[in-house]
């Protein structure tokens, strides 16, 4: 589903590589947790997958799409296939919860009636059905993050990338978000999650990939970890 082959990313030649010959293979329907200190290269890795950045060298194939052959004008098509959840939510501030989720469908030209049918179902999955008419600023951090997840999954992507979705949340809300991700994974979506949260890593018992100084430090099926912040 996701294949990185000796991927290197250099932002600034004087600073050394942010990622150095990283190879990673993720099977369909897998739930992979990526951990590592700030600046270790986690976010760069995800930005390469959403094509916010291009690798300096190496090969990336996601969902059968070879990024070397991806033209700029096809980037929107790629991003529609890969759902993304950001640490800072990135909700549209002037739109209601419903409209934020609907927006993801509007982009791909889904009709109004279908939107009215689909969005409440997805809001139900993230337990936000009753908040559909709220504005993002009226919600708690955890609720906002769940709106962002609803928006990411409403197009039923095969891959969901979540960049520290619990980073700004208290433990209770963080677990709300993680449970939603598990639920989505259960329905068949490949999930890639980065986190700092040691407790989450330990309780999830999923495959854990550690990134250290731009390298893959370890890659284990399930493990207990001490995550340093």
């Amino acid at each position: 589903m996701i294949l990185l082959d000796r991927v290197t990313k250099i932002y600034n030649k004087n600073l050394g590589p942010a990622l150095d010959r990283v190879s990673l293979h993720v099977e369909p329907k897998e739930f992979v947790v990526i951990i590592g200190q700030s600046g270790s290269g986690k976010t760069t890795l995800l930005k390469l997958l959403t094509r916010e950045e291009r690798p300096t060298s190496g090969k990336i194939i996601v969902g059968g799409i070879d990024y070397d052959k991806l033209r700029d004008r096809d980037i929107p098509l790629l991003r529609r296939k890969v759902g993304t959840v950001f640490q800072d939510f990135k909700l549209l501030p002037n739109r209601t919860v419903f409209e934020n989720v609907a927006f993801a469908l509007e982009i791909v030209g889904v009709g109004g009636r279908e939107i009215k049918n689909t969005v409440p179902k997805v809001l139900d999955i993230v337990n936000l059905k009753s908040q559909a008419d709220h504005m993002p600023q009226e919600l708690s951090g955890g609720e906002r993050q769940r709106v962002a997840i609803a928006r990411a999954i409403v197009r039923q992507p095969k891959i969901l990338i979540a960049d520290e979705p619990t980073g700004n949340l208290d433990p209770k809300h963080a677990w709300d978000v993680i449970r939603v991700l598990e639920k989505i994974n259960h329905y068949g979506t490949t999930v890639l999650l980065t986190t700092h949260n040691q407790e989450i890593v330990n309780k999830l018992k999923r495959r854990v990939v550690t990134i250290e100084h731009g390298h893959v430090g370890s890659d284990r099926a399930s493990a207990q970890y001490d995550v340093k912040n």
Partner: protein
Amino acid sequence: MGRNIITFARIIRTGIVNFMRNLWLAVAAMAIMIVTLTIVLFSIIVNATFNNTVTQITSRIDVSLYLKDSVTQAQTSKLIEQLRALPGVQHVTYLNKEQALQAYERQNAGNKQLVQAINETDNPLPATVHIKPDSLNQINQIRAFISKPSIVALQSNPANDGGDRRVAIDKITHATNILRRAGVGAVLVFATISVLIIFNTIQMAIFNRRDELQIMRLLGAGTWFIRGPFVVEAIIYGIFSAGISVLLINSVFVTASSSLQATSFGLLDISYSQSFFEHHFWSLLILQLALGILIGAASSVIATRRYLKFKTTKRQSKG
């Protein structure tokens, strides 16, 4: 409904909503566009009016040859033949002495004493040949021909070639050309300013919403899904501005024709301007609309380009 149609409808709807939300920003952009389009319209009308004035005056120009009484019928016929063969001659009319006298009497019908005095003498008027040139510039050729000694020998008086009027018309033509160039210059300057200001307005609108654009990009919105509403917004500026500029010019004519008794200021024949405007109302309106839409669309496409580029287009050198 196809997805493209749904998306197209959404782009237009979002554009209209944005237009209404950014109304104050829109007023600034539209104000300058109205000035531009009004100047364009004004220039077109003034130009047409000047052209009309020049045509009118030119049509009154002719050259008159006065023949000696001794010139025979055969000589006259030959002269007329030669004149008709000259390039640039529209037509030649001949008045014999009798006809010349009648024409003179008609022209001076109000002055009975003069007419009486003329009739008391033997007809003093010479037979006359009127030569009408195609255009003002052809007068020199005609003048050269009638200045030949063989032709001068036939003439009783020096020919009247409209010399004074010609100078006046030259001046008018010259002034018209200068005004026309000034008009084109003004249009270009204001169109440029207009594009820059609209460009700026849209950039401000985009700047306020740059986070939103970034989010749209990350969610996979296509270039035209993001750009479209801005273009629609600017096209609405164009449509309103075109309509208002036409209304402005129209109200100027309404005021002018009701408040001014004399509708002609030297070269500017306002009644002609007005009838030109009324006759060409629809084509002028369409022209204004087209121009407004073009300025709006072009500046919004350019303004959005910067924000819609994928920053990762260049692959960095391997290291």
